[in-house]
C-alpha cells in the first residue's frame, strides 16, 4: 500500500505499522536483486529508537534525527550492542527522491555553525572570498582552547554572521559558503 526507500532498500508495506508495539508485513527489495523479500516485522518502540524482531533474531537501534541543510530530517542509526552505525539516512516516500533530484539541481549553500558555545577571536575570511574545503575560516575560543573553524566545503563566502569578540551559542550560524 505504502512505498518508501532508504539507500538501496525499497519498502512496500502490506499493512500500516502503528503503535509502540506491533507487527506488520513488508516487502523489501534491494537494488539489483531479482525479487523482493516478504518479511514479518515485530517492533517495540522506545524513547531512543526501536527493537525489531526478525526471523534471525532481535535487533536494537538507537535513532536520532537532525534537520539536514535542506530542512529534511536526516537520521543517525546505531546498532545497540555493536559498533555499526550510519549517518545521513533519509526515508523517501515513493516519488519524493526523484522530485528532490529534479528540484535540487542547484546545490544549496552550507551553513557553518558553532559546535559549542564560545567567543570568536579572529575571522580570517571576507565575504566574496573563495575558500577551499578544510581552510581555516575563523578562530574561536571555547573550553579554554583556541579552535579553528574550517570550511566544510569549497566555495564562496556568502555571508559572515558574526564579528570578532562576539560570544556565540551552540548551533549559531557563523557564516555560509555557496
Amino acid at each position, binding site marked *: 500500500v505504502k512505498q518508501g526507500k532508504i539507500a538501496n*532498500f525499497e519498502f512496500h508495506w502490506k499493512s500500516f505499522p502503528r*503503535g509502540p508495539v506491533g507487527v506488520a508485513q513488508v516487502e523489501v527489495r534491494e537494488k539489483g536483486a531479482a525479487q523482493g523479500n516478504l518479511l514479518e516485522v515485530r517492533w517495540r518502540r522506545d524513547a531512543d*529508537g*526501536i527493537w525489531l524482531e526478525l526471523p534471525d533474531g532481535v535487533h536494537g537501534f538507537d535513532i536520532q534525527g537532525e534537520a539536514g541543510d535542506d*530542512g529534511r*530530517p536526516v*537520521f543517525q542509526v546505531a546498532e545497540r550492542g555493536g559498533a*555499526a552505525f550510519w549517518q545521513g*539516512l533519509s526515508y523517501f516516500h515513493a516519488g519524493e527522491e526523484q522530485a528532490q533530484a529534479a528540484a535540487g539541481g542547484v546545490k544549496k549553500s552550507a551553513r557553518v555553525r558553532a559546535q559549542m558555545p564560545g567567543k570568536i577571536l579572529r575571522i580570517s575570511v571576507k565575504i566574496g572570498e573563495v575558500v577551499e574545503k578544510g581552510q581555516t575560516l575563523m578562530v574561536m575560543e571555547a573550553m579554554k582552547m583556541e579552535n579553528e573553524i574550517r570550511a566544510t566545503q569549497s566555495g564562496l563566502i556568502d555571508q559572515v554572521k558574526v564579528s570578532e569578540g562576539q560570544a556565540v551559542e551552540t548551533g549559531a550560524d557563523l557564516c555560509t559558503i555557496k
Partner: protein
Amino acid sequence: MNQKLRRAPVLIANRGEIAIRIARTCRALGFPTVAVYSDADRFSEHVKFCDQAFHIGAPAPKESYLNVEKLLEVARLSGAKYVHPGYGFLSERPHFVEACEKAGLVFVGPSAESMRLMGDKITARRTVDELRVPRVPGSAGAVADAKEAARFAAEVGYPVLLKATAGGGGKGMRRVDSEGEISAAFDSAGREALGAFGDGSMYVEKLILEPHHVEIQVFGDGKGRAIHLGERECSIQRRHQKVWEESPAPILETHPDTRHKMFEAAVRVAEHVKYAGAGTFEFIVDGKGNFYFLEMNTRLQVEHPVTEWVTGVDLVAWQLLLAAGELALPSQAPERRGSAIEVRLYAEDPVSFLPAPGPLGAIELPTGAFVRSDSAFTGPGEVSVHYDPMISKVSVWAPTRPQAVDRLRAALDEARVEPPKRADGSRVGSLRTNLSFLRRLTRNEQVIVGDTTTDLIARNPGLIAPPPAEPSLEAALALATFQMLLESEGVEEGASEGGQGSAWQIVARREGARQ
C-alpha cells in the same frame, strides 16, 4: 572493621567522576565525605554521593572550584580535617597546599615545597638535570619572544614544540615545523596559555620522532623513601590529549632495560625531593628505547585505574592513609599482573575531536567481569560546558594484552550515550561523543598489536573516516519502521494540531521559509 572507626571528614575539592571515585574509597575506609559544588553542579552525582555538600559559587572555576577562601570556609563549616584535591583545579597549586596547612588542614598530596620543585616544568628540569635523568633538549627557561624561540629552534633543529610553562593537557602547546610558522604559533599558544593558566610564558623543545608517551607511577612516604607502581603507556592521543592508557607499556615490552632504568630514575628523583603520596613521572620514549623526562605530575592522574588494575593497589586509599599517618609503605614495588587498558569517553565530535557537551539523555556504561566504568553520569543530565567534557573512563583487565583489547572492544560495544530526544526522534542539544572512535581503536590493526606512537591518528585516517554509506537491511528496516510509526502518530496528532503534522514537517516548513 573500618565501619567502627570514627575518622575526621575529607573535603573533596573537586567534581565529577574523580570526586565520586575518591568518595568511594573514603566510605570504605570510614572517612565521612564533604562535597562542594558550583551553580552548574547543584544536582550532579558527586553532590548526592557525599555525606555533606556545600555550594561554593558560580560555574566559572575561579568563582568556585578554584576559590581557595570558599573551600577553606567549607572545611571549617563541615569539620573537615583532610582536603583531597583530585586532579585538575587546585591539585597542583602550592599556594593552596600552604593555605590548607595554615588553616590547620591536612592536604592529601605532596608538600608545597616538592610541588614547587617538581610541579613547575622549569624547576623540575633543573632537579632532574642534577640527578642526571635524560631529558629532551629544550630551552633553559621561558623564552622572551618568538625571535628567541626561533634562535633556539635553529640550534636543535626543527620540528620543535612550543609549550606553556604553566601548561598541561595540550593547552598552550604548538608543533612548529619551520621558521616561517614560529611567530604565529608563539603568539597563539601564548594567548591560549594566558587564558587557561593566567600565565603566557612559553618554552621550546625539540620534537622527538616516533614518540611513545610512557609514565611511571610512584608513591613516596614524604620522608625520603619512594617506590614505583609500574608504568603506563599513553601514546594514543588526540589534540595532544590522552585517550587510551595501558599497562604494561607495549614499547617497554621490547625494551625491558629501558623500563628498569625509568623505574630507577623516577624513584631516585621522588626520593631526592622527599615526595609524599602519588605522583607520576612522564617520559617520552623513542622507537629505539631512548627515554627523556618530560615532566612530573604531582597529583593523582586521570588514568590511575590502569595502575590499580595491574597492582591491586587502591591509590586513593594509600593517599588517605598516608595523610592520616597510617600507611606502611611496602619496601618493594608491588607485583604487577596481567594487562589493563583505560579509554576516555568524551563529549566531543568523533572526527574533529572538538568538545561537544550538551544535555544528556540515556546512558548505559559497560559492566561485567574485570570491567570498570568511572563516571559521574547515571541517567539524563547535562555534560556541562563549564568543565572538562569527559563522560566516563572505561577500563578493563585481562591476563594478557590481546585479551584486554578483546574485553575492551566488547565493553565499548555495550556502551550507549544518547542525547535527549523529542517524541519524533529529533535530537535536543549538541551532545556528541567519541564512542565510535574508541570502538574503532579497539579494531585497529596497529592498536591490536601494540604499535602505538603518538601520531597514530595521523597515520590511520580510517579512525575518523565517515561510516559506510549503505545501511544493513536491519538498520534500514528499523529506520523505515520508525518513520512509518512517526507518520501514523502524525496522522492522529495532526487532527488536534490543525493538520500541522510531525515536528519534522514544521521544521521543514520553517527552514523552507527561511531560504
